[in-house]
Every structure is written in structure tokens, then in C-alpha cells.
């Protein structure tokens, strides 16, 4: 039986009063950043402003802000950009950092996430930056340790600091000089996210953040990688499967890598994929010659985008990487000082 050969949708004959959904206890710690939804628009604004202040600060002054505070980086997945920029961010504020990776720790011996978190807390970690292959892992870690937890990517779910650094990059191009954002800041801006939406935490964090600042998010990709119900994830999200039609409307194009590690047996014709969704020079030149091209990395040259586009004048991919350090300084400082608390949405 194939999915899709379904009987008629169930009809509700009469409304019933039913048990309410209990209020979420998350985040337990006001310094945590689990989801972009933990931040109010005002909180986002404060983080952006603080990122710039910290970036421009004398490194010797900045170095004292979190002097000798203990930051643990707990990484269950490999990472170049996120790990290094969190580490540089924490060190840039004077904190001591330690890296625990799943392949060189007791995690290999079967220690649970809860026990790993409690162990780090007992060792004096004051905040844990977590990258994990399971969606929701950051929620579990926060619940069990009650420490401020920074979600550095949980499975297919969220990657909030990536969305913040993407926002900073977009603003630099589209709204130069503006740092205080509000619900209108990105009014009139269309951001198209292209490719493996289903498996992408970057896509989820961006689609939940950008519409709150006024942007329209267009999702573009084949059915296998972009289910229809993605459009129901929140307001301001629509699906446009025709890449060129999407490009024509876009001021920002965010390309995503196909996450081979999460395809779970899904068969994908890469030739067909490239024909429909690869961002190449002619396509970009013809449909969106002014759009900013983003990519959270790692990029696979020749697959989701060509080398020419990656290295071309519209690409802001390395600016994104660069912005990661400033954003993560602000986020780590918020976790440890409570000085820049975004509050809950």
C-alpha cells in the first residue's frame, strides 16, 4: 500500500472539549538557546547589537568578560564551522573551553547523554554547547542538567545560532547599518531555501525566525526532500517547487546540502536533482542577478551549487562563517551572564 492511497480525510462531526496541552517548561534556564522560538524579536535585536559590540571591542577588554568561566562543547557529530566558531567565541570572551566529542570519550562506551551532561556539570561546566544527531537532544540535556544549553544543531530539528548568523549576513546586504530589528525589518524580502529541507535543521530555524521579522520564506525542492506539510510549520512559509520561479522572487537564496547521512535509504537521482535545483551561473544570472547567495556549509561543489557560484560575487558564504563568531560570542555571553536575556517568545 502506497502512502497517498488514502481514504477520505476524517470529518469532525462535533467539537469536543478535550484535555489541554500542558504549557512547555522549556527553557528551564533563561540563558539557554534551544530554539529560535526561545527568543523574542527584541531578544534577537539585542543579540545582533551585542554581537557587533563584542566584535568591535578591544580583544584585551573582551577577554575579561567571561574570564575563566567554563564552557563545554559536547559534539556528537563532526563539525568544522560551528565547533570552531563557538570555541573561538568563548575563548574570545576569556572563557575556558573543553571539547568532548563522541568518538574520543566515554560516550563510545555507552554513557548516556544525561550522564555525560551531569558529568560535565560536576566538572564545573557552566554552560554546554551541544551538537547532536538526535532531534530534541538539547531539550533533554537542559532538562537533566538545568544548565544553560546552547543548541548547536539537534538532528533534523534546529540550529538557532546558524539562523542568527544568517540573519546578520542578510541584514548586512539588504539593510546595511540596521541592527535593531523588529517585525517589519525584512518586510518585502523573500528568502528561498532550496534543497533538502526535510533533513535540515538550518531550514527549520530560518523558517521559524525570518517570518517574524517580516520576511516571506519560500521552500523549494523535490517532494522527497520537501513534504507539503512543511508549509504548515508556521506563518509566512510557502512552497514553490519551480526553482526558477522561486529565484525570480528572491532577494536571498539559501542553498542546502543533501544530507546523505540522514537519507535513511531514500533513493535520489542526483542527475535529475541537479537539473532541477542546482544553483549555477546561468540560472542565477538569468533569474536572480542581485540575490545574495547563502549556504550553511559544508558545500558540495558541483552538486547543490557550482564552484563558480560559490566563489562568485553574489556569494556570502564566507561572510556567514565569519559572522558565526560574533553571533556566538553574544549567545555564549547571554548564557553565562544573563545580561542579554532574550526572554521567551
Amino acid at each position, binding site marked *: 500500500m502506497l502512502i497517498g492511497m488514502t481514504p477520505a480525510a476524517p470529518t469532525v462531526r462535533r467539537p469536543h472539549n*478535550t484535555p489541554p496541552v500542558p504549557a512547555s517548561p522549556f527553557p528551564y534556564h533563561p540563558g539557554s538557546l534551544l530554539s529560535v522560538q526561545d527568543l523574542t524579536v527584541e531578544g534577537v535585536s539585542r543579540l545582533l547589537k551585542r554581537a557587533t559590540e563584542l566584535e568591535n571591542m578591544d580583544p584585551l577588554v573582551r577577554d575579561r568578560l567571561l574570564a575563566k568561566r567554563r564552557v563545554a562543547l559536547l559534539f556528537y557529530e563532526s563539525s568544522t564551522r560551528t565547533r570552531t566558531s563557538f570555541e573561538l567565541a568563548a575563548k574570545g570572551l576569556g572563557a575556558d573551553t573543553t571539547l568532548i566529542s563522541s568518538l574520543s570519550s566515554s560516550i563510545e562506551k555507552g554513557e548516556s547523554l544525561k550522564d555525560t551532561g551531569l558529568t560535565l556539570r560536576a566538572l564545573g561546566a557552566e554552560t554546554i554547547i551541544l551538537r547532536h544527531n538526535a532531534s530534541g537532544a538539547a531539550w533533554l540535556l537542559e532538562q537533566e542538567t538545568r544548565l544553560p544549553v546552547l543548541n548547536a544543531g539537534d538532528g533534523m530539528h534546529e540550529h538557532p545560532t546558524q539562523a542568527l548568523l544568517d540573519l546578520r549576513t542578510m541584514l548586512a546586504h539588504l539593510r546595511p547599518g540596521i541592527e535593531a530589528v523588529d517585525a517589519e525589518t525584512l518586510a518585502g524580502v523573500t528568502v528561498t531555501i532550496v534543497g533538502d529541507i526535510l533533513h535540515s535543521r538550518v531550514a527549520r530555524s530560518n523558517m521559524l525566525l525570518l517570518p517574524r521579522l517580516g520576511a516571506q520564506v519560500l521552500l523549494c525542492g523535490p517532494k522527497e526532500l520537501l513534504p507539503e506539510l512543511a508549509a504548515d510549520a508556521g506563518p509566512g512559509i510557502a512552497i514553490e517547487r519551480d526553482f526558477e520561479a522561486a529565484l525570480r522572487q528572491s532577494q536571498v537564496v539559501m542553498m542546502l546540502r543533501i544530507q546523505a547521512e540522514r537519507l535513511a535509504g531514500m533513493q535520489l537521482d542526483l542527475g535529475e536533482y541537479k537539473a532541477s535545483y542546482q544553483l549555477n551561473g546561468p540560472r542565477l544570472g538569468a533569474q536572480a542577478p542581485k540575490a545574495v547567495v547563502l549556504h550553511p556549509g559544508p558545500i558540495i561543489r558541483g552538486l547543490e551549487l557550482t564552484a563558480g557560484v560559490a566563489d562568485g560575487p553574489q556569494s556570502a558564504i564566507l561572510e556567514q562563517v565569519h559572522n558565526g563568531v560574533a553571533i556566538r560570542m553574544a549567545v555564549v555571553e547571554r548564557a553565562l551572564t544573563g545580561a542579554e536575556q532574550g526572554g521567551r517568545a
Partner: protein
Amino acid sequence: MNSLVIRGGQLVDPAAGVDAPKDILLKDGRVAEIAGPGKLKGANGAEVLDATGLVVAPGLIDMHVHLREPGQAHKETIASGTAAAAAGGFTSVAAMPNTRPVNDSVETTRWMQAPERGAVVRVFPIAAATRGSKGEAINDYAALKSAGAVAVSDDGLPILKDGIMREALAAAARVGLSVIQHAEDTRMTQGASMNLGPMSFKLGLRGMAPEAEWALVERDIKLVTEMREARPHLHVAHTSTAAALAAVRQARRSGLRVTCEVAPHHFLLTEEHVGFYNTNAKMCPPLRSAADRDAMIEAILDGVVDAIATDHAPHAVHEKEVEFENAPNGITGLETALGLCLRWLHKEWKMPLGRVLSLLSAQPAALLGLKGRGTLAAGSFADVVVFDAKAEWSYRAAASRSKSRNTPFDGFAMQGRVRWTISEGRVAYAAEK
């Protein structure tokens, strides 16, 4: 043997058509006499329970529980599971065979019923439909039935092969047992940990399509239709989708012997209750959409649902304190079923008390062929629950008699508080005053 009088209560026995003030005398494990208030003839010398202001009803019957013994006593034992059952008003529980080893033998079936297990209410084993629940070769149902099995099922591991399911239905029909199917086409649910929908997308979890349930129910009904001469009895466990219920409804109209049960969590909660990865809201089948939940309510109210069963599935705290996708499926349910059914089915949705109790006793007794249970007619087993139908309280998982605490109903408002549970004439549970 001992005798016991329950005096001053309102007897609600839907199978006997009784809803009246009655005194009741229990003797030698059976109901000896029922009479108007103060009119019992043989009550002399009997211990008396004062049930003034309380409802006296047939002990509840849960046709779908996991008692985890043999093999996983850290989650639950037959003793602890039946203690939880008694606290919830249940006097009979039908135990699924996904134990370790799988209960596919006369030996295990007998072992589960042995007095050494310390059960405080009656345990009726449901034997595995196939050897090792592997879905490849059917077991000896006649032998299992004479050892005490009341149905066959590979619960949790659906029988996918048409030929094997056909054989199981035919063999079970020959010995008068039902085949209970956990309806999930597992070829469609690989790696999934919640319902497929906007919520699973948002949470970044792989989702189980409702079609996976419907597809297997449809397949099974097709088999039952082809074999209608043999009158096989298909029972669909923990029905969770509107489409599957519609298929059952249709099959019933065509005169087939297709029955179903619904669990309290499926008629009360939705995928929204998963919240941020609450592993105590993870079970299989998963919490579904609001439309599916509403379809469960409708089908209970209009009589298509044959029984309410809890799918009590205890797991140790540490097993649930993990990443959502790695957490085992299942929630406890024995202590919350009555309180939730009365709070919602009866109080909120106005289902008559007798009908609610019937879904929790007389009807499951009939489905499993439990003679002399599910009613308190004279001569029946002295399986009784006495409860205060009006009492409102909050469930506290920490106070559970189960070994496990994995419930999404911690802190939920309940209505109807059990005062005594009596299993074959013995007090199996008495509420603290």
C-alpha cells in the same frame, strides 16, 4: 472460605441491566447473593464493607497490558503490574506475549499464571500468534488455549505475511480464539517515532503515516472477508486513526467478526502533547492528529468501539530519559484509565456511567470469552470495584504502584476514585483513608 458483604452502594452492572441500590454478598470467590438494601439473607458473620455513596460495579478488565514478566522485571513484574491494576479498579488483565522469552509456549503461559508470580488480580495470558512472534510459523493454539491463553497476538510485531495471517485467523477460529493485531505496516514506519504530520516535521522527527495502520487493517479485513465461512475473529488493538476505525465500522456492517479497542491516550491526547520531546508521550501507535482523536471519541460514543484497553506498557525511568527517537514506545495506563474515562467520557461527553463501565468490563470479557466475569450476576466471580464516582483528584505518577512512571497523565485531573478492588472475593486494593 471467607465471605464479604458490600453494603449500601449503588450497583451498576450493565451486563445484568442493573443500576440500583443493592447489597451484595460474596462467598468463596463468587457472588452469592444480591438483594435490596438491608435484605441480604446469608450475610451473617460476613465482613462488611460500607459502600454508602459509592458505586459497586464488576471489576474492570483490561484486555491489553504488558506485564514484562518473564524477562524484564526491572520495568514491571506480574506482582507490581497487578498491584497497579488493582489500584486502578481492574480485576482482570490480559497480558501481551512480548516478554523475554516471547510467550509462545504452554510453559510460559502457565508460568505467568502460577501463584508464585504474586498476582493480586487475575492474569490472562495472550499467547504469541507465531513462533517467537517472528511472523513465520503459527503456534499450537489448542495447546495454548488449554494452558489458559485467551487470545493470540504478535503485539508490537504485526503479522505482515498474508499467508501467515490467514493461517492464524483460521487456526484461532477453530479453537475459538481471536487474533489480536497490532495494525502497523512496519515497512512504512521505519525509523519513525511519532505521528506523521506538521508536528513531526516541526520537531524534526520521522513520522508514522496514519496509512500504515489503515493499510494493515484493510488487509486483515480482506482476509477475514475471504474466510467468512470459518467465522474468524479479528480484533484490532489500540486503534488510533479515523481511517482504521472507518474500516472496522464498514467490516462490522458487512457482518464480519471484526472488533476493536481504543486506549485512553488515543481518545484524549494528540501529537501536540508530545510537546518538546516528552518521551512519556511516545508510544506505538503514536498520538495522532486532533481529527483522529475526535474520530476515536465519536466511535466510542456511537458504539463502534468494543472496549477501552490501556496498552499499559511500563518502562524504567532511565530507559525513557533518552533522546526521543531512542526512547522505547509505551506508557503506563492501569491506574489512570477509570479516572480519565469518568472525567471525560462520562462527565464531559455525557456517556452514561453504565456504558462507560461496560467498555471497561462486560465488553472486554465478552471479547476474550471470560465466563463469569464482567458482570456481578449471582454465581459470577466475585470481581468487584467499589468507587466514588464523584471524587475529583489529580494523578501522581510518583505514587504509582507500577514499577514504572512513564505516563503523560501525571498531574491530570481524574474523576472517580477507587475505594476497594476485590478479586475473586479477596480485597486486592483498599484506598488509604
